[in-house]
Structures are given as C-alpha cells and as structure tokens.
C-alpha cells in the first residue's frame, strides 16, 4: 500500500456540505524544524473531525496556527467561506473559534465565574459581567449537561471539571468551532465517555468539533472524518466509517524505506536486565506503565514498539533511574533494585547501564555546552577526568577528539557548541559517550529521530555491534521499521501495557493492530 495525500476524500467533504474551516497550503517552521508542510484541510460544518498523528507530527502546531497562537509562514485560513487572518487569539475568538488546550489555560486561584469571564468581561466593572456569566452558564449547563459549581476555585476542581470549564469558556464566547487538543490525556475512561457525549450533543446543535488526539480508539468512537498527520504533513483524510484502526495506525507511523541491516542471528544468553511488575505514574498522577515485566538477555536486542505516548517514555525513564516508579523491581547485572525507591541515573551507571535518552536535546545534551563538555556528561565525576579538584580539560578534549574520529562526528571540533551540530551528529555524540563506557546493558530511545539516512545506518550498525559483543540492548522506537530490522524480539506497548510479543518477521499489519490496542488473539 502506498500513502499519498488523498485529494479524493478532501473533495468529498467540500461537495457534501459547507466547510467550517478550510486550510490551504499552511507552512510553519521553527528554525530548522519544518513543523507544518503544505497542509491542506477541509472540516465540514457540524461534524466531528479528528486529527491523528504521533507526538511531534505537527498537530498542535497546526491548531495553534488556527487559534492565532502562531502565525503561519505561508498559507490561507478560510473560515465559513471567508478568507480570515488570525494574527492572535482575539481574532480567532472573533471568528467563532474556541480552543480547549492540552494544558488548560485556566487561572488556578480564580473561581469558575472569573475564569469564564476573563477577556469577555463586558464592561470595565465586574459586577454586571458576573451576573451575566452566571445566567449564561446556567443555560449552557442545562443545555449541554455540563454542570459545575460556579463559585468553586478552579485549581481545586478535578481535571475533568477543569476541562469542562474550558469548554464552557469557549461556548460563552460564542464559539461555533471548537478545537480540543488531546482532551482525554488526563481523563479517566468514564470522564472521557462523558466528554464524548457532550461533543456529540454539540455537533448535533450545529457546532463543528476538531478533535486532536493520538488515540485511535477515540477517533473511531466519536469522529465523522479523520485526517492523519505525519512528520508535519497531512498524509490522508478518511471518512471514519470507511477506515480502520489498522489503516490509521499504519498511516500514522508511516512506511519509510526499509533500511537493510546486515546481522547474524542472535545468540542470547542469560538475562542481564530483568524487570518485574513495573508500574509508573507520570507527573499528573496518570498511570503510564502498567504491570510491565520483561527480560533482556545478553546478546539480544529487545524492541519496544508502539505508537508514541503509550508509556514507552515513562518505561525508559523508570529503568534509567530518572523517574521513580510506583512498584517494580529490576535485576541489573546481578544487582537487585527496588524501582519504587528513589534512585539516580548515576547509581545505575555504576552497575553497568548506559542510557541514550529519547530526547537528546532535553535529556542527552546541554545544547549550549561545547562538544567535549557534553562528551563526559554524567561521567564528569570519573577520577580519570580530574586533576585534583579540577577537570583535566586537556585530557577530556583529547579523548573527545579521538571519539569524534572513531564515530565520524563532523565537524571534528570538540570546542564547537553542541547546538551547532546536525541532528545525526548530535545523536552520535550521545551514542559515543554511552557506548564507549562499555556498558553491559544499553537502553536506547528513538535512536534515529531527526537523524539523516547516513547516520541512521551508522547508528544501527553500532547497536548491532553492541549486541554481538554480548551486551543486552533495550530499544524503544516509534519507527516500526527500525524495530523490525534491529530487534531480535519485539514487545508491543499500548496504553501502558505490554499487549503482545512477536518475532521481527511478524507482519507489519499484525504489529499495527497490536499497536492500535487490538487484543493479542485478534491480531493474529
């Protein structure tokens, strides 16, 4: 199956009814990152239109453009048939667009009434506005079954109700088009169901809903149309009734050119990393990793596949000592570790674990530091790098230069700021640092995200070499092809659970179904 921009279904919508929103050729770049590339989108009036894509696919950027938070570099926005400029949120509100942000835009110490009226006070004095808000909210609450205590302090409300306040805020401002950015990320299933009921009522009243999510089940449940984004591009639009989770999953993850990786069959030995009953909650208290147990043997690569945001990040963080787990134990090269206690990444490094984090900019590197400084991050306390109380800078620099030659990191200037290297070279800097310590267990997250083809090949080769040297490698990637070509065993994660184990020759479709949360048996 090939995937291309599906003009046909876009045309379908326009002929069927009036478009509430039409986007034409939207482009947006942040520095070197092209977050939105030539986006075309048609959203029918009175419909629920889903936009799916992985984290970082550009969905939120696109919606921020629509809500006037960013302005597009090029492209047109057409609202209700009229070409509209949306330079700021005020203009968006005036065009009848309301947005419920992923991170709520609420003032925590304010009451519900104060939050709703902020920006729409209707006069320099508050007293009249307060009366009006109360009356209007009473009406909205009855009409859409959205009851909330108007005098409650918003920060004290549970997240489900906070979200309701956000929706009420948009409706109070007369929004006809409602954008919801990942609305169910913080909700319990029951709250999510209630939200969807509200959305259907709103649609039936003639409102247009844009639902941004990476959860396919929600798309299938509640939307009329769905558009898929991948790496900044709108890759397809489908009628929800005519598509399937498997197709959407495949569209989201994409099929890049399958890179040939030469490797011998694995010769796994005893496990070097064993995890039992791991449960991890994120900062908001949502359970992200649920009862995960796994073993990584010496001389094998265990791949964790899954649509991003299904707990893989938290799994890596918990195993590397960055995040404290709720429960769980880990056997790491003969050391038994209680993961529900507090640990540091340095503790685990001592035991022979290295970690190439998913997000090299935020966790793997200090962008404003020189390359040689980055080359010892986390190992800077090592006696070998010190000269009395000081760093032995000459030695660090010499070693950095040596590694730059070995890993073909260009330009080979250890004094250059890390931010000035390309993505592939930055990744090699992290990889060199972690691999050259000769760890027994290597955790790698998204090894080739934002990396050019040449570097991908190089990085893959190194990972295989680690395996062949008898190390245990845990590889987390949202690139299914990467997992399939590198891993010796594949575990699929969905909603925090390991939903199935497969060998790398399992079909893409089968893995795609697992990634979409279809049960193990059904996927076979």
């Amino acid at each position, binding site marked *: 199956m090939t995937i291309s921009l599906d003009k046909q279904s876009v045309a379908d919508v326009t002929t069927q009814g009036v478009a509430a929103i039409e986007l034409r050729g939207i482009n947006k770049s*942040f520095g070197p990152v092209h977050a939105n590339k030539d986006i075309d989108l048609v959203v029918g009036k009175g419909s629920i239109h889903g936009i799916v894509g992985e984290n970082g696919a550009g969905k939120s950027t696109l919606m921020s453009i629509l809500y006037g*938070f960013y302005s597009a570099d090029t492209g047109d926005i057409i609202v209700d048939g009229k070409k509209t400029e949306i330079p*700021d949120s005020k203009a968006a509100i005036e065009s009848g667009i309301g947005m419920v942000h992923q991170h709520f835009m*609420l003032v925590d110490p*304010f009451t519900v009434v104060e939050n709703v009226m902020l920006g729409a006070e209707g006069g320099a004095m508050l007293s009249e*506005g307060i009366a009006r808000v109360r009356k209007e909210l009473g009406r909205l609450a009855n009409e859409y079954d959205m009851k909330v205590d108007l005098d409650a302090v918003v920060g004290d409300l549970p997240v489900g109700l906070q979200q309701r306040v956000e929706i009420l805020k948009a409706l109070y401002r007369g929004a006809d088009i409602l954008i919801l950015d990942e609305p169910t990320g913080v909700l319990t299933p029951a709250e999510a169901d209630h939200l969807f009921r509200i959305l259907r009522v709103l649609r039936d009243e003639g409102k247009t809903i844009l639902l941004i999510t990476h959860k396919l089940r929600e798309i299938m449940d509640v939307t009329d149309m769905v558009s898929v984004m991948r790496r900044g591009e709108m890759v397809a639009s489908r009628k929800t009734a005519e598509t399937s989770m498997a197709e959407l999953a495949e569209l989201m993850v994409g099929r890049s050119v399958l890179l040939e990786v030469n490797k011998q069959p694995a010769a796994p030995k005893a496990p070097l990393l064993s995890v039992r009953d791991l449960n991890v909650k994120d900062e908001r208290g949502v359970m992200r990793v649920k009862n995960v147990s796994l073993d990584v043997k010496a001389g094998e690569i265990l791949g964790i596949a899954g649509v991003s945001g299904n707990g893989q990040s938290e799994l890596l963080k918990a195993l590397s000592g960055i995040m404290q787990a709720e429960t769980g134990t880990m056997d790491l090269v003969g050391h038994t570790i209680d993961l529900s206690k507090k640990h540091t990444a340095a503790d685990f490094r001592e035991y022979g674990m290295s970690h190439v984090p998913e997000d090299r900019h935020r966790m793997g590197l200090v962008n404003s530091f020189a390359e040689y400084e980055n080359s010892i991050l986390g190992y800077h306390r090592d006696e070998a790098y010190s000269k009395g109380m000081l760093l032995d800078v000459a030695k660090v620099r010499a070693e950095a230069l040596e590694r730059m030659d070995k890993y073909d990191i260009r330009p080979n200037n250890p004094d250059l700021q890390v931010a000035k290297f390309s993505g592939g070279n930055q990744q090699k800097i992290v990889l060199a640092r972690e691999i050259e310590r000769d760890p027994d267990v290597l955790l790698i997250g998204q090894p080739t995200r934002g990396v050019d083809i040449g570097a991908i090949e190089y990085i893959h080769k190194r990972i295989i070499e680690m395996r062949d040297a008898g190390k245990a490698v845990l590889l987390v990637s949202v690139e299914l092809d990467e997992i399939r070509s590198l891993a010796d065993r594949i575990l699929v994660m969905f909603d925090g659970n390991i939903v199935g184990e497969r060998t790398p020759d399992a079909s893409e479709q089968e893995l795609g179904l697992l990634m979409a949360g279809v049960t193990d048996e059904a996927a076979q």
Partner: protein
Amino acid sequence: MFDVIILVLDSTLRLSTPLLFACLAGLFSERSGVVDIGLEGKMLGGAFAAGTVAYLTGNPWAGLLAAICISIVLSLIHGFASITNRGNQIVSGVAINFLAAGLSVLLGQAWFGQGGRTPQLEIEARFAPITLPFADSVRDVPFLGPIYADLISGHNILVYAAFLTVPLTWWIVFRTRFGLRLRAVGESPHAVDTAGISVVWLRYRAVIICGALCGFAGAYLAIAQSAGFIKDMSAGKGFIALAALIFAKWRPVSAMFACLLFGFLDAIANLMQGQEVPGIGEVPVQFFQALPYILTVVLLAGFIGRAIPPKNVGVPYVKERT
C-alpha cells in the same frame, strides 16, 4: 503615657506613608508578574526630582508631578528590559537602584553643589500639615479629642492620599476588569493570552501604575517629610515595602497593616533611641531596624502561614512551542 502612645502612633502614620505607597506600587507590578526590586531606586529618583522641581518652581505639586514622571520613566526602563526584552527582572531592578542612587547624587552635586543635596525648601514649596475641621475645638474632649486632633488631623495631604489609595487599590484589583486581568496575568499569562488579551500591554500598564505610586512615595520623602532631597534618603524603605508586600501576601488591605506594623517598629526605634529598657538595658536601635526583615524571614519560613506569590511572578512571558 497616653500622650506617648499618641505620639508614637502619629509618628507611625508618617513613617508608614512612604512604605504604603511603595508597597501598593509593588503590588500592582508583582500582581502582573513583574518582580520589582527597584522600588527603592524609583522612590529615590522620585525624591530627587521632587526636591529639584519644588525648589525651582516653589510649588510642591510641580515637585510631585516631576517625581511621578521620573519614577514612571524608571518603571518603563524596567518594563522594557523585563517585559519587552524578557530580561532578568532582578538584575534590571538592581540596575535601576544603582542608577537612581548614583545619578541623583551626581546631578545634585552638578546643579546645586551641596554634596548631592537639593537646596533647603521654603515652607510653601512643601506639602504642609493640614488641620482638619474642628481639630482645635475638640482637642480638650477626653480620649477621643487628642486622637482626632493630634493623631488623625495635622498630617500633610500625601499621608491621607496614601491611606485612601488602599481602598482604591482594593477596588481596582478586585472589582474592575483591569484588576481581574491583572490578577490573571501574574498567575497564568498563557490563559490571558489565549483569552485574547495582550500580556505585554497589561504588564506595561501595571508597571506604569507602579511607577506613579513610587513617585508619590519619593515626593513624600523629599518635599513632605523633609525639606529637600538628601543622598540615599530612601534608606532601604523600598526593600521594607517589598517585605511588607510579601508579609501581606500581595493583598492591599493586609499591605496597609503590614506597612503600619513596620512603620510602628520604626517609630518605636526612634523613641527607644538611647533609652533604657528596665531589666534589659539599652536596646541597640539596629535591633528595631532589623525587625521588619526578621519578621519577614519568620513569615517566609512558614511560621505564620505561607506567602504564595503570583505563580508567574518574575517569569518573562514567551509563547512556548508545543
């Protein structure tokens, strides 16, 4: 004894006034999310402007206006650095303190050649005490008479203005649209931005109000309390006002009581100078001067209850990439 109490309270009112202006000034700025450690500098700049202009024109109102203008200019510099250019607000505030302390003395010396002072003001170039109606006739009424005649009456107009600014501030902050937005922008500028309100313009208005109120404080020092500008005459009052603001948890009425408390400590310090306390001996005056800070530290340590500042105070607003 009663006379002494009246005297101390009277002195408390006078000493609290500049604190109160500065504290309310800081309240506007910090409620909007802009930390203002430059209250001190703005007061000093205002005091110098007031002293100079009142001397040149012989009119205290012109002095007051000059103080307000200069103080607003300093505020706008702070705003430009911290709102427009998203600089570090502490550094910017400290810079303003240095600027005001240095420039006032430099210009004072260059213009008047009196070691950085401005020339002594005539009585009509200053804000004179106002005797309220019937003050003299009720003085002999026991108890209430002296309270009215000596404590409430007999202050200059800026003292009354300071205490009237308290309910005014309360009303603005809690009862007007501007106040709602002001409170919101210090807590959650993103919410304000997405509500279609300009964060930048809102914060600028807040620092302008802050500047105006600091101007009142400065003018009070130079042309109401004293008869001219003296080098470093603000003497840390801007910092005490900041401490009072924290003590008051950024609330106007509490701010008044905090300023009165700190003014009272100051008045006691003056009274106790060189006096023996029975059983203890002479208490060093520095002890009383340090008390406002000690009280604030005790408060911040959580003994009296937590002071939670506006959530985004000190954080420049950047539309973040998501």
